[in-house]
């Protein structure tokens, strides 16, 4: 189980290859990549800054992976989340889960994203034509996480 919070971009193919390597009991890998959209709530986004709480972020993400491991029969899981300055179409986050069968991989991957969205201390600030603004939390993200409770 791996958690990384970093400024640098990540290479999806290389990360998934590392996750697969050395375990031919893996039958399924579900992954998710989140990207910066150029349009959010009807405003053009020129740039985005991601702030986090160093220490707590890594701890929160590790706990989310641990919960996923307890709930589903998964083999390994990975979260990489970027911080700092990002542009539209840049990668923000990667979540990947390996397991023997696809059901566990899909469920755990979606679970991790839902928890990350509502429990991991990251904050987005957007630069739009109308100036800079902190992104508001979405009610829909809280609704999404409630289905796992």
């Amino acid at each position, binding site marked *: 189980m791996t958690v990384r919070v970093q400024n640098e971009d990540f290479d999806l193919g290389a990360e998934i290859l590392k996750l697969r390597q050395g375990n031919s009991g893996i039958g399924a890998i579900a992954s998710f990549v989140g990207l910066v959209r150029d349009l959010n709530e009807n405003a053009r986004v020129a740039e985005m800054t991601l*702030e986090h709480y160093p220490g707590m972020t890594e701890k929160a993400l590790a706990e989310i992976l641990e919960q996923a491991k307890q709930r589903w029969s998964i083999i390994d899981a990975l979260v990489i989340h970027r911080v700092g300055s990002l542009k539209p179409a840049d990668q923000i986050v990667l979540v990947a889960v390996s397991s023997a069968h696809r059901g566990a991989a899909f469920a755990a991957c979606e679970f991790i994203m839902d928890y990350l969205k509502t429990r991991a201390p990251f904050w987005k600030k957007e630069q739009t034509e109308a100036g800079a603004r902190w992104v508001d939390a979405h009610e829909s993200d809280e609704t999404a996480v409630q289905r796992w409770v």
Partner: protein
Amino acid sequence: MITLLYFARLRESFGISSEQAHPPAHVVDVRSLTEWLRQRGGAWQEELAQSRPVRVAVNQDMAGPDRAVCDGDEIAFFPPVTGG
């Protein structure tokens, strides 16, 4: 002495990202700490108003208003998270 951390909009509104504070003896939990900070007025009163959805972490764990606050704790205030 406790360490206070502020993130995102709160950090910008308060103009500081961290401070060492010495709250009075009646500050025993997250609720009384928040109330004490609110009494600073201005941005503090506004951002920490009860209507605002402020989140608090004590020693890097999410904490409710009843969570005890002890000497040496690291206590963070921030808006609902928006990562991912």
